Protein backbone atom coordinates (compact mmCIF):
# COMPACT_ATOMS: atom_id res chain seq x y z
CA UNK A 1 0.00 0.00 0.00
CA UNK A 2 2.43 2.60 -1.22
CA UNK A 3 -0.20 5.15 -2.17
CA UNK A 4 -2.31 4.94 0.88
CA UNK A 5 -4.37 7.99 1.59
CA UNK A 6 -3.95 7.96 5.35
CA UNK A 7 -1.39 6.67 7.79
CA UNK A 8 -1.51 6.08 11.52
CA UNK A 9 1.38 7.16 13.68
CA UNK A 10 2.00 6.59 17.32
CA UNK A 11 3.61 9.27 19.43
CA UNK A 12 4.60 9.58 23.05
CA UNK A 13 1.55 11.69 23.71
CA UNK A 14 -0.99 9.87 21.58
CA UNK A 15 -1.98 8.77 18.13
CA UNK A 16 -1.89 10.81 14.98
CA UNK A 17 -3.63 10.15 11.70
CA UNK A 18 -1.96 11.83 8.75
CA UNK A 19 -4.18 12.57 5.76
CA UNK A 20 -2.23 12.72 2.52
CA UNK A 21 -3.17 15.97 0.83
CA UNK A 22 -2.81 14.57 -2.71
CA UNK A 23 -5.27 11.75 -2.08
CA UNK A 24 -8.90 11.78 -3.13
CA UNK A 25 -11.22 12.65 -0.31
CA UNK A 26 -13.42 9.64 -1.01
CA UNK A 27 -10.35 7.39 -0.64
CA UNK A 28 -9.50 9.05 2.62
CA UNK A 29 -13.01 8.50 3.91
CA UNK A 30 -12.95 4.88 2.91
CA UNK A 31 -9.51 4.16 4.35
CA UNK A 32 -10.34 5.99 7.55
CA UNK A 33 -13.40 3.80 7.99
CA UNK A 34 -11.35 0.66 7.36
CA UNK A 35 -8.66 1.77 9.77
CA UNK A 36 -11.09 2.64 12.54
CA UNK A 37 -13.05 -0.57 11.98
CA UNK A 38 -9.87 -2.51 12.27
CA UNK A 39 -8.73 -0.72 15.39
CA UNK A 40 -12.13 -0.95 16.98
CA UNK A 41 -12.26 -4.72 16.66
CA UNK A 42 -8.79 -5.00 18.02
CA UNK A 43 -9.10 -2.55 20.85
CA UNK A 44 -7.12 -4.71 23.22
CA UNK A 45 -4.11 -2.78 21.95
CA UNK A 46 -5.23 0.31 23.78
CA UNK A 47 -4.92 0.37 27.50
CA UNK A 48 -7.17 3.38 28.00
CA UNK A 49 -10.94 3.18 27.48
CA UNK A 50 -11.09 6.33 25.42
CA UNK A 51 -8.65 7.09 22.61
CA UNK A 52 -7.99 10.55 21.18
CA UNK A 53 -6.58 11.02 17.71
CA UNK A 54 -4.83 14.06 16.30
CA UNK A 55 -5.50 14.60 12.65
CA UNK A 56 -2.74 16.16 10.60
CA UNK A 57 -3.55 17.45 7.11
CA UNK A 58 -0.19 18.92 6.07
CA UNK A 59 -0.40 21.57 3.35
CA UNK A 60 -4.13 21.23 3.03
CA UNK A 61 -6.94 23.03 4.84
CA UNK A 62 -10.07 20.96 5.38
CA UNK A 63 -13.25 22.72 4.43
CA UNK A 64 -16.06 22.81 6.98
CA UNK A 65 -17.87 20.21 4.94
CA UNK A 66 -14.89 17.84 4.91
CA UNK A 67 -14.34 18.34 8.62
CA UNK A 68 -17.94 17.43 9.26
CA UNK A 69 -17.61 14.24 7.20
CA UNK A 70 -14.55 13.13 9.16
CA UNK A 71 -16.24 13.91 12.45
CA UNK A 72 -19.24 11.88 11.31
CA UNK A 73 -17.03 8.86 10.68
CA UNK A 74 -15.56 9.12 14.17
CA UNK A 75 -19.05 9.42 15.65
CA UNK A 76 -19.65 5.74 14.75
CA UNK A 77 -16.97 4.65 17.20
CA UNK A 78 -17.85 5.66 20.76
CA UNK A 79 -14.37 4.84 22.05
CA UNK A 80 -12.59 7.06 19.55
CA UNK A 81 -12.60 10.82 19.36
CA UNK A 82 -10.78 13.60 17.58
CA UNK A 83 -8.39 15.56 19.76
CA UNK A 84 -7.89 18.23 17.10
CA UNK A 85 -7.45 18.71 13.39
CA UNK A 86 -4.23 20.45 12.48
CA UNK A 87 -2.76 21.81 9.25
CA UNK A 88 0.64 23.32 8.50
CA UNK A 89 -1.00 26.18 6.57
CA UNK A 90 -3.50 28.97 7.31
CA UNK A 91 -5.73 31.15 5.16
CA UNK A 92 -4.26 34.36 3.75
CA UNK A 93 -6.96 36.38 5.51
CA UNK A 94 -6.10 34.81 8.85
CA UNK A 95 -2.42 35.47 8.24
CA UNK A 96 -3.14 39.11 7.37
CA UNK A 97 -5.19 39.45 10.55
CA UNK A 98 -2.31 38.08 12.62
CA UNK A 99 0.16 40.47 11.01
CA UNK A 100 -2.28 43.34 11.48
CA UNK A 101 -2.60 42.54 15.17
CA UNK A 102 1.15 42.46 15.71
CA UNK A 103 2.00 45.53 13.67
CA UNK A 104 2.46 49.10 14.84
CA UNK A 105 0.19 51.17 12.64
CA UNK A 106 1.22 54.73 11.90
CA UNK A 107 -1.79 57.02 11.74
CA UNK A 108 -2.10 60.78 11.21
CA UNK A 109 -5.86 61.32 11.00
CA UNK A 110 -7.85 64.12 12.50
CA UNK A 111 -10.44 62.41 14.68
CA UNK A 112 -13.23 64.92 15.04
CA UNK A 113 -16.07 65.35 17.50
CA UNK A 114 -18.33 62.30 17.29
CA UNK A 115 -15.89 60.15 15.31
CA UNK A 116 -14.40 56.88 16.54
CA UNK A 117 -11.21 55.56 14.98
CA UNK A 118 -10.62 51.91 15.79
CA UNK A 119 -7.28 50.31 15.05
CA UNK A 120 -6.48 46.60 15.20
CA UNK A 121 -3.14 46.31 16.95
CA UNK A 122 -0.78 49.01 18.17
CA UNK A 123 -0.90 52.56 16.89
CA UNK A 124 1.70 55.27 16.55
CA UNK A 125 -0.60 58.25 16.44
CA UNK A 126 0.63 61.48 14.87
CA UNK A 127 -2.72 63.18 14.17
CA UNK A 128 -5.13 65.03 16.40
CA UNK A 129 -7.99 63.74 18.52
CA UNK A 130 -10.46 66.58 18.88
CA UNK A 131 -12.72 66.99 21.88
CA UNK A 132 -15.46 64.38 21.57
CA UNK A 133 -13.43 62.14 19.26
CA UNK A 134 -12.21 58.67 20.27
CA UNK A 135 -8.95 56.99 19.31
CA UNK A 136 -9.33 53.31 20.05
CA UNK A 137 -6.73 50.57 19.57
CA UNK A 138 -6.87 46.90 20.48
CA UNK A 139 -3.20 47.16 21.44
CA UNK A 140 -0.94 49.93 22.72
CA UNK A 141 -1.27 53.61 21.86
CA UNK A 142 1.90 55.63 21.30
CA UNK A 143 0.91 59.27 21.16
CA UNK A 144 3.00 61.75 19.25
CA UNK A 145 0.12 63.92 18.10
CA UNK A 146 -2.30 65.98 20.09
CA UNK A 147 -5.00 64.30 22.14
CA UNK A 148 -7.87 66.51 23.26
CA UNK A 149 -10.52 63.82 23.18
CA UNK A 150 -10.61 60.24 24.44
CA UNK A 151 -7.68 57.85 24.10
CA UNK A 152 -8.48 54.17 24.54
CA UNK A 153 -5.92 51.35 24.48
CA UNK A 154 -6.47 47.61 24.82
CA UNK A 155 -10.01 47.89 23.55
CA UNK A 156 -12.15 46.05 24.61
CA UNK A 157 -10.44 43.79 27.18
CA UNK A 158 -6.65 43.80 26.86
CA UNK A 159 -5.39 44.72 30.32
CA UNK A 160 -1.75 44.59 29.34
CA UNK A 161 -2.04 47.45 26.84
CA UNK A 162 -0.42 50.80 27.64
CA UNK A 163 -0.79 54.38 26.51
CA UNK A 164 2.48 56.22 26.06
CA UNK A 165 2.57 59.94 25.41
CA UNK A 166 1.16 63.29 26.37
CA UNK A 167 -2.39 62.87 27.65
CA UNK A 168 -2.45 66.12 29.61
CA UNK A 169 -5.03 67.64 27.26
CA UNK A 170 -7.18 64.53 26.88
CA UNK A 171 -10.72 64.28 28.23
CA UNK A 172 -10.37 60.65 29.25
CA UNK A 173 -7.94 57.76 29.06
CA UNK A 174 -9.24 54.22 28.87
CA UNK A 175 -7.48 50.88 29.01
CA UNK A 176 -9.60 47.73 28.65
CA UNK A 177 -12.64 48.36 30.89
CA UNK A 178 -11.02 51.06 33.04
CA UNK A 179 -11.69 54.75 32.57
CA UNK A 180 -10.15 57.87 34.06
CA UNK A 181 -11.91 61.17 33.49
CA UNK A 182 -9.62 64.17 33.64
CA UNK A 183 -11.14 67.26 35.17
CA UNK A 184 -10.12 69.97 37.60
CA UNK A 185 -9.56 67.45 40.37
CA UNK A 186 -7.90 64.65 38.44
CA UNK A 187 -5.05 65.81 36.23
CA UNK A 188 -2.48 63.65 34.48
CA UNK A 189 1.10 64.11 35.58
CA UNK A 190 3.22 65.48 32.76
CA UNK A 191 6.34 63.73 34.03
CA UNK A 192 4.63 60.32 33.91
CA UNK A 193 3.53 59.71 30.34
CA UNK A 194 2.95 55.97 30.62
CA UNK A 195 -0.57 54.85 31.52
CA UNK A 196 -1.09 51.19 32.42
CA UNK A 197 -3.30 48.86 34.46
CA UNK A 198 -1.64 48.01 37.79
CA UNK A 199 -1.93 44.91 39.99
CA UNK A 200 -4.93 46.40 41.79
CA UNK A 201 -6.70 46.65 38.42
CA UNK A 202 -6.56 50.43 38.41
CA UNK A 203 -5.14 52.90 35.93
CA UNK A 204 -1.70 54.07 37.06
CA UNK A 205 1.07 56.28 35.68
CA UNK A 206 4.79 55.73 35.28
CA UNK A 207 7.85 57.62 34.11
CA UNK A 208 9.10 56.81 30.64
CA UNK A 209 12.20 54.99 31.89
CA UNK A 210 10.03 52.67 33.98
CA UNK A 211 8.20 51.33 30.93
CA UNK A 212 11.04 49.00 30.02
CA UNK A 213 10.70 47.21 33.30
CA UNK A 214 6.93 47.12 33.04
CA UNK A 215 6.61 45.86 29.46
CA UNK A 216 9.97 44.59 28.20
CA UNK A 217 8.18 42.98 25.25
CA UNK A 218 7.41 46.37 23.74
CA UNK A 219 11.10 47.08 23.49
CA UNK A 220 11.75 43.68 21.96
CA UNK A 221 9.21 44.52 19.29
CA UNK A 222 10.78 47.87 18.48
CA UNK A 223 14.21 46.29 18.27
CA UNK A 224 17.33 47.98 19.61
CA UNK A 225 19.22 47.05 22.72
Amino acid at each position, binding site marked *: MANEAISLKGHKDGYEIVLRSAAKFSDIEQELKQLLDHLYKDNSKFDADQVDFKIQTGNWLLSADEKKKIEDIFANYPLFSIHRIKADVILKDDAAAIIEKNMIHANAD*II*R*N*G*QIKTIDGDVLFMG*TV*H*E*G*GILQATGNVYLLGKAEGIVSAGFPDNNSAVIVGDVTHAQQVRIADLVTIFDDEVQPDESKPVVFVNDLHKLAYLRMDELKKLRPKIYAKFGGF
Partner: protein
Amino acid sequence: MGKSIVITSGKGGVGKTTTSANLGTALALMDKKVCLIDLDIGLRNLDVVLGLDNRIIYDIVDVAQGRAKLHQALIKDKRFDDKLFLLPAAQNTDKSALEPEEVKKIVEELRPDFDYILLDCPAGIEQGFMNAVAGADQAIVVSTPEISSVRDADRVVGLLEQKDLKEAPMLIINRIKKHMVNDGDMMDVDEITRHLSIKLLGIVFDDEDVISSSNKGEPVVLNEKSAAGQGYRNIARRLEGETVPLMSLKEQKKKGLFEKVTEWFKRK
Protein backbone atom coordinates in the same frame (compact mmCIF):
# COMPACT_ATOMS: atom_id res chain seq x y z
CA MET B 1 -20.97 75.17 -15.36
CA GLY B 2 -21.90 76.37 -11.93
CA LYS B 3 -20.41 75.39 -8.64
CA SER B 4 -22.69 74.14 -5.88
CA ILE B 5 -21.85 75.05 -2.30
CA VAL B 6 -23.70 73.92 0.81
CA ILE B 7 -23.77 76.31 3.76
CA THR B 8 -23.99 74.34 6.95
CA SER B 9 -23.08 74.43 10.65
CA GLY B 10 -24.61 71.66 12.70
CA LYS B 11 -25.76 74.03 15.39
CA GLY B 12 -28.82 76.16 14.84
CA GLY B 13 -28.93 79.93 15.00
CA VAL B 14 -25.33 80.63 14.00
CA GLY B 15 -26.29 82.43 10.80
CA LYS B 16 -26.51 79.89 7.98
CA THR B 17 -29.49 81.56 6.37
CA THR B 18 -28.07 85.06 6.82
CA THR B 19 -24.78 83.87 5.33
CA SER B 20 -26.55 82.23 2.37
CA ALA B 21 -28.62 85.33 1.65
CA ASN B 22 -25.69 87.72 1.93
CA LEU B 23 -23.17 85.62 0.09
CA GLY B 24 -25.68 85.08 -2.71
CA THR B 25 -26.42 88.78 -2.89
CA ALA B 26 -22.74 89.74 -2.79
CA LEU B 27 -21.98 87.34 -5.66
CA ALA B 28 -24.92 88.70 -7.63
CA LEU B 29 -23.55 92.23 -7.09
CA MET B 30 -20.30 90.98 -8.61
CA ASP B 31 -22.28 90.09 -11.74
CA LYS B 32 -22.42 86.37 -11.04
CA LYS B 33 -25.59 84.41 -11.65
CA VAL B 34 -26.64 82.83 -8.38
CA CYS B 35 -29.36 80.42 -7.34
CA LEU B 36 -30.16 80.02 -3.66
CA ILE B 37 -31.87 76.83 -2.56
CA ASP B 38 -33.60 76.76 0.81
CA LEU B 39 -33.52 73.22 2.19
CA ASP B 40 -34.87 74.02 5.64
CA ILE B 41 -38.14 72.35 4.85
CA GLY B 42 -40.92 73.07 7.31
CA LEU B 43 -39.22 76.18 8.68
CA ARG B 44 -38.28 78.14 5.60
CA ASN B 45 -36.95 81.64 6.11
CA LEU B 46 -34.37 82.37 3.44
CA ASP B 47 -37.23 83.88 1.43
CA VAL B 48 -38.09 86.20 4.32
CA VAL B 49 -34.51 87.41 4.76
CA LEU B 50 -34.37 88.18 1.03
CA GLY B 51 -37.77 89.87 1.11
CA LEU B 52 -39.24 87.43 -1.39
CA ASP B 53 -41.72 85.63 0.85
CA ASN B 54 -44.79 87.19 -0.78
CA ARG B 55 -43.89 85.83 -4.20
CA ILE B 56 -43.77 82.08 -3.54
CA ILE B 57 -46.09 79.97 -5.65
CA TYR B 58 -44.28 76.63 -5.94
CA ASP B 59 -41.51 75.21 -3.78
CA ILE B 60 -38.74 72.61 -3.98
CA VAL B 61 -40.99 69.73 -2.93
CA ASP B 62 -43.42 70.61 -5.72
CA VAL B 63 -40.51 70.42 -8.14
CA ALA B 64 -39.15 67.17 -6.73
CA GLN B 65 -42.57 65.51 -6.87
CA GLY B 66 -43.32 66.77 -10.35
CA ARG B 67 -46.14 69.16 -9.49
CA ALA B 68 -44.20 72.08 -10.96
CA LYS B 69 -41.39 72.70 -13.41
CA LEU B 70 -38.13 73.98 -11.99
CA HIS B 71 -38.35 77.32 -13.82
CA GLN B 72 -41.86 77.85 -12.46
CA ALA B 73 -40.68 77.52 -8.88
CA LEU B 74 -37.63 79.78 -9.19
CA ILE B 75 -38.23 83.27 -7.82
CA LYS B 76 -36.30 86.10 -9.39
CA ASP B 77 -35.00 88.88 -7.18
CA LYS B 78 -35.95 91.99 -9.13
CA ARG B 79 -33.28 94.13 -7.47
CA PHE B 80 -30.54 92.35 -9.37
CA ASP B 81 -31.73 91.94 -12.91
CA ASP B 82 -31.60 88.25 -13.74
CA LYS B 83 -28.72 87.57 -11.35
CA LEU B 84 -30.27 86.23 -8.16
CA PHE B 85 -32.84 83.46 -7.93
CA LEU B 86 -34.38 81.55 -5.05
CA LEU B 87 -35.82 78.06 -4.93
CA PRO B 88 -37.89 78.18 -1.75
CA ALA B 89 -38.47 75.38 0.77
CA ALA B 90 -41.87 73.84 1.41
CA GLN B 91 -43.63 74.66 4.63
CA ASN B 92 -46.43 72.15 4.87
CA THR B 93 -44.38 68.99 4.92
CA ASP B 94 -41.30 67.70 6.72
CA LYS B 95 -37.70 67.01 5.81
CA SER B 96 -38.37 63.41 4.80
CA ALA B 97 -40.43 64.70 1.85
CA LEU B 98 -37.15 65.16 -0.03
CA GLU B 99 -34.55 62.56 -0.99
CA PRO B 100 -30.83 63.24 -1.54
CA GLU B 101 -31.18 61.98 -5.12
CA GLU B 102 -33.92 64.51 -5.84
CA VAL B 103 -31.80 67.40 -4.58
CA LYS B 104 -28.90 66.17 -6.66
CA LYS B 105 -31.11 66.08 -9.74
CA ILE B 106 -32.36 69.64 -9.17
CA VAL B 107 -28.81 70.93 -8.69
CA GLU B 108 -27.65 69.22 -11.88
CA GLU B 109 -30.54 70.81 -13.73
CA LEU B 110 -29.58 74.27 -12.47
CA ARG B 111 -25.85 73.88 -13.01
CA PRO B 112 -25.63 74.89 -16.70
CA ASP B 113 -27.54 78.14 -16.11
CA PHE B 114 -25.83 79.48 -13.00
CA ASP B 115 -22.35 80.41 -11.73
CA TYR B 116 -23.14 79.55 -8.13
CA ILE B 117 -25.75 77.35 -6.52
CA LEU B 118 -25.89 77.93 -2.77
CA LEU B 119 -27.69 75.34 -0.66
CA ASP B 120 -28.96 76.62 2.67
CA CYS B 121 -28.75 73.61 5.00
CA PRO B 122 -31.07 73.12 8.00
CA ALA B 123 -29.60 72.73 11.49
CA GLY B 124 -28.79 69.21 12.64
CA ILE B 125 -27.14 66.26 10.93
CA GLU B 126 -30.18 64.23 9.94
CA GLN B 127 -32.06 63.85 6.68
CA GLY B 128 -32.10 67.58 5.90
CA PHE B 129 -28.32 67.73 6.20
CA MET B 130 -27.90 64.64 4.01
CA ASN B 131 -30.20 66.19 1.38
CA ALA B 132 -28.23 69.43 1.30
CA VAL B 133 -24.81 67.78 1.18
CA ALA B 134 -25.83 65.37 -1.58
CA GLY B 135 -26.09 68.21 -4.08
CA ALA B 136 -22.88 70.01 -3.15
CA ASP B 137 -19.37 70.18 -4.63
CA GLN B 138 -18.08 72.07 -1.63
CA ALA B 139 -19.14 73.05 1.85
CA ILE B 140 -18.92 76.24 3.86
CA VAL B 141 -19.14 75.64 7.58
CA VAL B 142 -20.44 78.55 9.62
CA SER B 143 -19.48 78.80 13.27
CA THR B 144 -19.72 81.47 15.93
CA PRO B 145 -16.87 81.93 18.43
CA GLU B 146 -18.67 79.84 21.05
CA ILE B 147 -17.53 76.43 22.21
CA SER B 148 -20.87 74.73 21.50
CA SER B 149 -20.90 76.03 17.96
CA VAL B 150 -17.24 75.11 17.33
CA ARG B 151 -17.83 71.58 18.68
CA ASP B 152 -20.79 71.09 16.34
CA ALA B 153 -18.80 72.51 13.45
CA ASP B 154 -16.09 69.94 14.22
CA ARG B 155 -18.68 67.16 14.09
CA VAL B 156 -20.04 68.46 10.80
CA VAL B 157 -16.57 68.77 9.24
CA GLY B 158 -16.00 65.13 10.19
CA LEU B 159 -19.22 64.11 8.44
CA LEU B 160 -18.39 66.23 5.40
CA GLU B 161 -14.96 64.63 5.10
CA GLN B 162 -16.63 61.21 5.03
CA LYS B 163 -18.91 62.40 2.22
CA ASP B 164 -15.90 63.02 -0.02
CA LEU B 165 -17.01 66.26 -1.64
CA LYS B 166 -15.02 67.54 -4.60
CA GLU B 167 -13.32 70.21 -2.49
CA ALA B 168 -12.36 70.48 1.17
CA PRO B 169 -14.74 72.36 3.49
CA MET B 170 -14.08 76.01 4.37
CA LEU B 171 -14.89 78.01 7.45
CA ILE B 172 -16.72 81.26 8.11
CA ILE B 173 -16.58 82.60 11.65
CA ASN B 174 -19.68 84.63 12.24
CA ARG B 175 -20.82 87.10 14.92
CA ILE B 176 -17.40 88.05 16.21
CA LYS B 177 -17.66 90.67 18.91
CA LYS B 178 -14.48 92.70 18.62
CA HIS B 179 -14.36 93.98 22.16
CA MET B 180 -14.91 90.54 23.66
CA VAL B 181 -12.15 89.01 21.55
CA ASN B 182 -9.80 91.84 22.47
CA ASP B 183 -10.61 91.37 26.15
CA GLY B 184 -9.92 87.63 25.81
CA ASP B 185 -13.51 86.69 26.66
CA MET B 186 -14.23 85.17 23.27
CA MET B 187 -12.37 82.44 21.35
CA ASP B 188 -10.22 84.14 18.76
CA VAL B 189 -10.14 83.48 15.03
CA ASP B 190 -6.77 81.72 14.98
CA GLU B 191 -7.73 79.43 17.81
CA ILE B 192 -10.93 78.30 16.10
CA THR B 193 -9.29 77.87 12.70
CA ARG B 194 -6.43 75.88 14.17
CA HIS B 195 -8.82 73.73 16.14
CA LEU B 196 -11.01 72.85 13.18
CA SER B 197 -7.99 72.63 10.85
CA ILE B 198 -9.87 73.68 7.74
CA LYS B 199 -9.29 76.71 5.53
CA LEU B 200 -10.67 80.01 6.82
CA LEU B 201 -12.80 81.69 4.16
CA GLY B 202 -13.65 84.78 6.15
CA ILE B 203 -14.88 86.41 9.31
CA VAL B 204 -18.00 88.45 9.93
CA PHE B 205 -18.37 90.87 12.81
CA ASP B 206 -21.40 91.00 15.00
CA ASP B 207 -23.41 93.90 13.72
CA GLU B 208 -26.86 95.18 14.63
CA ASP B 209 -27.42 96.17 11.03
CA VAL B 210 -27.75 92.47 10.19
CA ILE B 211 -30.92 92.18 12.24
CA SER B 212 -32.47 95.44 11.12
CA SER B 213 -31.77 94.79 7.45
CA SER B 214 -32.99 91.19 7.64
CA ASN B 215 -36.22 92.49 9.14
CA LYS B 216 -36.62 94.77 6.15
CA GLY B 217 -35.91 91.92 3.73
CA GLU B 218 -32.70 93.55 2.52
CA PRO B 219 -29.47 91.59 2.93
CA VAL B 220 -26.88 93.55 4.89
CA VAL B 221 -24.34 93.47 2.03
CA LEU B 222 -26.43 96.14 0.36
CA ASN B 223 -25.48 98.46 3.22
CA GLU B 224 -22.06 99.79 2.32
CA LYS B 225 -21.29 101.13 5.76
CA SER B 226 -21.95 97.90 7.64
CA ALA B 227 -18.95 95.95 8.90
CA ALA B 228 -20.85 92.69 8.53
CA GLY B 229 -21.73 93.60 4.96
CA GLN B 230 -18.06 94.24 4.27
CA GLY B 231 -17.22 90.81 5.73
CA TYR B 232 -19.65 89.09 3.35
CA ARG B 233 -18.41 91.07 0.35
CA ASN B 234 -14.84 90.01 1.17
CA ILE B 235 -15.94 86.36 1.39
CA ALA B 236 -17.62 86.58 -2.00
CA ARG B 237 -14.43 88.03 -3.51
CA ARG B 238 -12.35 85.23 -1.98
CA LEU B 239 -14.75 82.65 -3.48
CA GLU B 240 -14.02 84.27 -6.82
CA GLY B 241 -10.32 83.69 -6.24
CA GLU B 242 -9.25 87.19 -5.21
CA THR B 243 -6.82 87.69 -2.37
CA VAL B 244 -8.42 89.87 0.26
CA PRO B 245 -6.87 90.43 3.69
CA LEU B 246 -8.89 89.55 6.78
CA MET B 247 -10.65 92.47 8.43
CA SER B 248 -8.82 93.90 11.38
CA LEU B 249 -9.99 93.05 14.86
CA LYS B 250 -8.68 96.32 16.24
CA GLU B 251 -11.32 98.61 17.59
CA GLN B 252 -11.45 102.19 16.56
CA LYS B 253 -11.69 104.09 19.75
CA LYS B 254 -13.95 107.07 19.80
CA LYS B 255 -11.70 110.03 20.49
CA GLY B 256 -12.50 112.27 23.40
CA LEU B 257 -12.28 116.05 23.27
CA PHE B 258 -8.89 116.07 25.03
CA GLU B 259 -7.36 113.64 22.53
CA LYS B 260 -8.74 115.63 19.61
CA VAL B 261 -7.16 118.80 20.95
CA THR B 262 -3.76 117.21 21.59
CA GLU B 263 -3.82 115.65 18.13
CA TRP B 264 -4.56 119.05 16.66
CA PHE B 265 -1.47 120.46 18.37
CA LYS B 266 0.66 117.48 17.26
CA ARG B 267 -0.16 118.11 13.64
CA LYS B 268 1.67 121.44 13.64
